[in-house]
């Protein structure tokens, strides 16, 4: 059982911005534990960590551990580190495990399958919808979805898991109180509310610095048993996550995309180099040897009564998504009549309007 005081002392070390990973390692090497470093902190440490870090550490030390513990508790921030009961066991297996994690929500003790879904921040509708759908189906099967709470694919993956009432974990490259991007704060709150967690290895008030993110990416893959790559352009930061995944011995899946889209470049290359193909959630579940909970029998929902024209329109859209112009030609009806047909089918939830006056049938 780990002393809670050790956690707080470790947090004390993390809160000093000017102290880097190396400095922390040196201190722990010298003193043995973070607690020992706190208790026996002396000017001799100045030589180890330099003036700036030393001054900052001693200032923070003079405040004491109690206020630190209180402020963390007030924000609902909890701590864990290797050896502590909530520390994810998957993370202990990675080459570069975090010394300390700040988190809000709950890190489950019980192990389930966890899949990381990562991809471009400049996603396309295709990628967004697939990430959402796959995350949703996986979460419905009890899989935990891991992602980085960034814009684009990350957001879609978290949302998919949440909409399936599932569990998802977001890993930040900034402090928990410095949400980046800010518009995802509501998403983070939802994640916590639904039994997931938002995690960061940086002190709560750390800025989202550019170099945090590539380092953070090792945790995104480390938290999961497998990684799904959805859309990434060449030189994307997502490649770093894939690299970590391979180093950590995690399974890598890639979602194929249109061959002419820039976002398909990296997933397709990964597929050629041996990544597993993922076309639906079942692909991942089967390849990971996960026993799916018996899915409720899909009963065919009967179509509501449709008029002849509505039927023709619906059939046309089941075949292929089409523009208003194409539909006018295919059905040979005037614009005003087509408008009426489209609205009625849309209101019945049979079809969906897309940007560019495109329409498609809703999957049933």
């Amino acid at each position, binding site marked *: 059982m780990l002393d809670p005081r050790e956690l707080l002392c470790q947090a004390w070390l993390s809160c000093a911005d000017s102290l880097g990973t190396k400095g922390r390692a040196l201190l722990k090497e010298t003193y043995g534990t973070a607690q020992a470093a706190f208790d026996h902190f002396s000017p001799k440490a100045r030589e180890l960590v330099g003036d700036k870090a030393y001054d900052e550490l001693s200032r923070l030390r003079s405040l004491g551990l109690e206020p630190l513990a209180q402020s963390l508790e007030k924000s609902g921030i909890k701590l864990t580190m290797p050896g502590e009961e909530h520390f994810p066991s998957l993370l202990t297996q990675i080459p570069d495990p975090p010394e300390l994690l700040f988190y809000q929500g709950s890190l489950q003790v019980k192990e389930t399958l966890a899949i990381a879904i990562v991809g471009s921040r400049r996603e396309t509708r295709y990628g967004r919808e697939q990430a959402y759908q796959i995350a949703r189906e996986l979460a419905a099967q009890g899989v935990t979805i891991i992602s980085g709470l960034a814009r684009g694919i990350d*957001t879609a993956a978290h949302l998919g898991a949440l909409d399936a009432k599932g569990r998802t974990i977001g890993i930040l490259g900034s402090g928990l109180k410095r949400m980046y991007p800010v518009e995802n704060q509501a998403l983070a709150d939802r994640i916590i509310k639904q039994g997931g967690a938002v995690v960061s290895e940086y002190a709560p008030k750390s800025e989202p610095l550019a170099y945090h993110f590539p380092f953070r990416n090792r945790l995104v893959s480390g938290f999961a048993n497998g990684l799904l790559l959805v859309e990434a352009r060449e030189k994307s930061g997502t490649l770093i996550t894939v690299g970590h995944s391979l180093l950590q011995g995690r399974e890598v899946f890639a979602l194929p995309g249109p061959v002419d889209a820039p976002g398909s470049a990296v997933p397709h290359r990964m597929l050629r180099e041996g990544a597993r193909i993922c076309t639906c959630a079942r692909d991942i579940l089967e390849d990971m040897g996960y026993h799916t909970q018996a899915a409720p029998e899909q009963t065919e929902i009967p179509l509501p009564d449709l008029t002849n024209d509505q039927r023709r329109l619906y059939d046309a859209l089941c075949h292929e998504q089409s523009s208003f112009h194409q539909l006018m030609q295919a059905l040979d009806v005037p614009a005003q009549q087509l*408008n009426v047909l489209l609205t*009625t089918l849309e209101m019945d939830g049979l079809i969906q309007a*897309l*940007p560019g*006056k495109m329409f498609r049938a809703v999957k049933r």
Partner: protein
Amino acid sequence: MLARTKCFALNGIQGQPVTVEAYVASASQFTFNIVGLPDAAVKESRDRVGAALKNSGFVMPVGQTVVNLSPADLRKEGTAFDLPIALAIIVASRQLLVPALDDIVLIGELALDGQLQPVNGALSIVIAAHEQGFRKVILPRDNAREVEVVSGMEVYPASSLLEVAQHLSGQNLIPAQEQKTYAECLVSTVFDMDLSQVRGQQLPRRALEIAAAGGHNLLLIGVPGSGKTMMARCLPGLLPEMSQEEAFETTRIHSAAGVLKPGTGLMTQRPFRTPHHSASLASLIGGGMNARPGEVSLAHNGVLFLDEMPEYPRTVLESLRQPLEDGVITISRVKAHTQYLSRMMLVASMNPCPCGYFGSQTRHCRCGSHDIKRYLDKVSGPLLDRIDLQVEVDVVPVEDIVNPEETESSAQVRARVIMARAMQAERFMGSEIRCNAQMGGKDMESLARVTPQALTLLQSAVKKYGLSMRAYTRLIKVARTIADLAYEETVELPAMAEAIQFRMIDGKYWGEPHA
């Protein structure tokens, strides 16, 4: 000796009577002063009047001359006071014997050679003069046609100070201008854009027709080169001519702003204003030192077209919200405080994203979802909410350009628009409302006559798409116009269904990706 002439000062488009008093006395030194809160242009009339008098065969009195513009606490601006000042001086210095000047309104700017130049706001002055009980007015010839429809006024168009003097003294009478009816002013206009030039685009065509028929605000959103601007420019050709009342309102604003071409008559065609996106807040809304009307008022009874709407500064766009809702704008400045009507159709065009190709079927969009969001967010939700018809425009397939189908011309569509407007005129008889878009919340339920089925559909749409109360009422108005175009007494389900189709882009572009 003392002499008085009558004229009017303008505050916005409201005319206020001003008496010009001239007092001429013998004195050893020459002095000439104008008092009574004149602005720079009025003060300068001192020099213009002096020169014009000499060049018209009169002389400037050698002694002391004082001109007072009464009421003395009212600010006076503009050049319309030249003529009444000159005449007051001529009469006061006994260079001309005239019976009575009290019942004649004089307006006009003087050139140095004594010719009369047109002034701004002539129509407003003549209307105000008529309201004040005046029945005769002498004004510059170039302003004459502007007021030819005002009934009950004897208008004497003059071209020089000498002509006015001779007319007043009875030596050489100017014939009064023949009064015209409004119908005689209506001339057939050739528009530079016609719908027959637009290929394909059935959906935007339909939106233009509905917008024109009901006076609805319209947003065209689409890829570059899809013809958004061209279609918007077809609107003047689809709109009916203004009624006499509307023509008066609009002409008065244009005349006061000085944008009416000299020598032209009453405006009969609806204005189509296209301010550039570098336009300032004051030029769009109105303002400046003397609270001049802005583009929203110049577009009164017509169209305000904002091309590439997200390029306009946010503050400028947001300032449109109040005039769009109220149809009137109050401008307050230190020196002036005035109201202008601003009941216009807002027509805007925009691209769906920074690169322009979001949602296009022919080209890839290069923008990330965040870039798109940031671009679209330049148009705020409240403003978007006030746009009744939102229509997506895509490029016309090449086959359709090469082998065009027979397309309707503006005149054909306009005929239907006029019929629909006739139905509205009957509906709104005896009220302030002129078209469906102007219906207010309280009288709408009774006026629109929506069937229960249509209302049920509307309510489920509101629920499904999370529409606002304002969107709800605006949908009823659009559906009412669609029914008018089909000569239907009540708003049936199909009309409502079509209206909803023109409201769907909020969620697709502005909504959450997964909503």
